[in-house]
């Protein structure tokens, strides 16, 4: 293990000593960066505008961001639900850190989905918001998972925070289809035009741009997760470390109070 101060590895693999980077995350980071550049080239330059939308041909390029970020946010919330379930089963810190990290990144991607959807809405319907079924259920999911993050911040005790947010993580995900289904029903009564324009006929290089966009979004999600998970794990380790310190202080307080620290504590004692 090289000395922590000088940073590990050399050249492009030189990692910051304190950070959450590792060989794996650095390699994936490079892959993500390269694929983003390729994606931008294909999405913005190489692929032709969509003739069927006449003057708005260029606008189809917004879809290359909108659809992938939607895919990424559903993936993130699915990971949160699975990690929450695993936490209830295994009760280890790792699963809780995974669930919370994925939820936070999911909220970021939901925000992106809403932003790109709203800009797309302004170009085609002239209003910054359209009660299109998918946009509406995405907005509801946004608030729902903001509530999940708010619940995590509201609970101090790490164990009960993990357990309660695990249960909410599962219930929230179970809600996604219900919200989706009822909103689709709700809007399908009133108009179908918006649904059609959200999926303009896509083929050729444009289809590649869209598909490649999804791959890049998922790679980016995994990369962000590697760092966010390690940050959450480090914070949990810090909390645990704080506990040992508090335990030592508490026992010092006992001696100061004139009480004697019990034999089994000093000999066998807590690990």
């Amino acid at each position: 293990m090289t000395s922590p101060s000088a940073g590990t590895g050399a050249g492009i693999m030189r990692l910051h000593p304190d950070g959450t980077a590792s060989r794996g995350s650095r390699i994936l980071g490079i892959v993500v960066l390269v694929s983003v550049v390729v994606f931008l080239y294909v999405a913005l330059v190489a692929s032709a505008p969509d003739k069927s939308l006449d003057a708005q041909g260029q606008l189809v390029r917004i879809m290359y961001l909108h659809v992938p970020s939607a895919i990424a946010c559903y993936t993130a919330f699915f990971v949160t639900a699975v990690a929450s379930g695993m936490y209830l089963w295994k009760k280890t810190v790792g699963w809780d850190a995974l669930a919370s990290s994925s939820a936070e990144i999911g909220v970021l991607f939901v925000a992106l989905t809403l932003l790109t959807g709203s800009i797309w809405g302004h170009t085609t319907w002239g209003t910054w918001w359209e009660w299109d079924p998918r946009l509406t259920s995405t907005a509801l999911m946004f608030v729902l998972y903001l509530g999940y993050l708010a619940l995590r911040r509201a609970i101090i005790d790490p164990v009960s925070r993990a357990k309660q947010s695990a249960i909410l993580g599962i219930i929230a995900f179970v809600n996604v289809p219900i919200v989706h289904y009822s909103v689709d029903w709700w809007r399908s009564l009133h108009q179908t035009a918006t649904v059609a324009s959200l999926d303009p006929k896509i083929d050729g290089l444009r289809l590649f741009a869209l598909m490649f966009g999804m791959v890049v979004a998922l790679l980016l999600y995994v990369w962000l997760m590697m760092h966010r998970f390690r940050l959450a794990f480090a914070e949990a380790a810090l909390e645990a470390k704080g506990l040992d310190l508090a335990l030592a202080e508490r026992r010092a307080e006992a001696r100061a109070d004139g009480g004697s620290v019990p034999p089994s504590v000093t000999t066998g004692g807590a690990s």
Partner: protein
Amino acid sequence: MPDLAADSMLRGSMLRDAAMVVGKDLRLEWRSRVTLSQILPFALLVLILFAFALDPDRRILEEATPGLFWLAVLFSMLLAIQRAYAVETADGVIDALRLSDLDPAGIFLGKAAGIGLHLLVLEVVLFVGVTVLYGATPHGGLLVVATMLLATTGLAAAGSLYGVLAAGLRVRDTLLPILMLPVVAPVLIAGTEAFSAAYANASGDGWKWCGLLAAFSVLYLAIGIFAFEPLLEES
């Protein structure tokens, strides 16, 4: 953890405990009259505020009656849930609940039944209020009643579950709305659409919304029965 709920269901203690809890809640309401003297007036106030907001003489109120009705129910529901769990978190009662031999699933169903009954009373009053204040003449009575019962079950089950989730927290008053309202949005949609169908004398296509409400209720009753125990433990 789930096996506890399953075997207590077999012993039938779940329903008996639920009856005990809802009996206690009704007696508590009888003594304190919080719903009658505070939540009910609030519900009517909401209807009046809608009228200020929507210019009564331009028929908007009458057309929007189904939606406004269910919005008023949703806001009153938040107060009813806050009250239902404020009672349980006061003065160490939650410890007494844990120490008692009451089956957690029974407590969940009891609290849900309590919230549901309070909501039904509120809905009846709101229904009269909407009919009188907004001049909306109701049709399709069967669909209206069915929607009310199913929606109330769903709201009560979700409310009882989210109520205990937020119960132990200092910030529960501000956290409960953002946790609950996105979850009960489908009930608002289904309720409004079913009522619109009833009011438009086209009860036929209102029934599929009742199906959605029934599915929502069954789902939340099931989740509640199994998730209530760990939540009560942690709150």
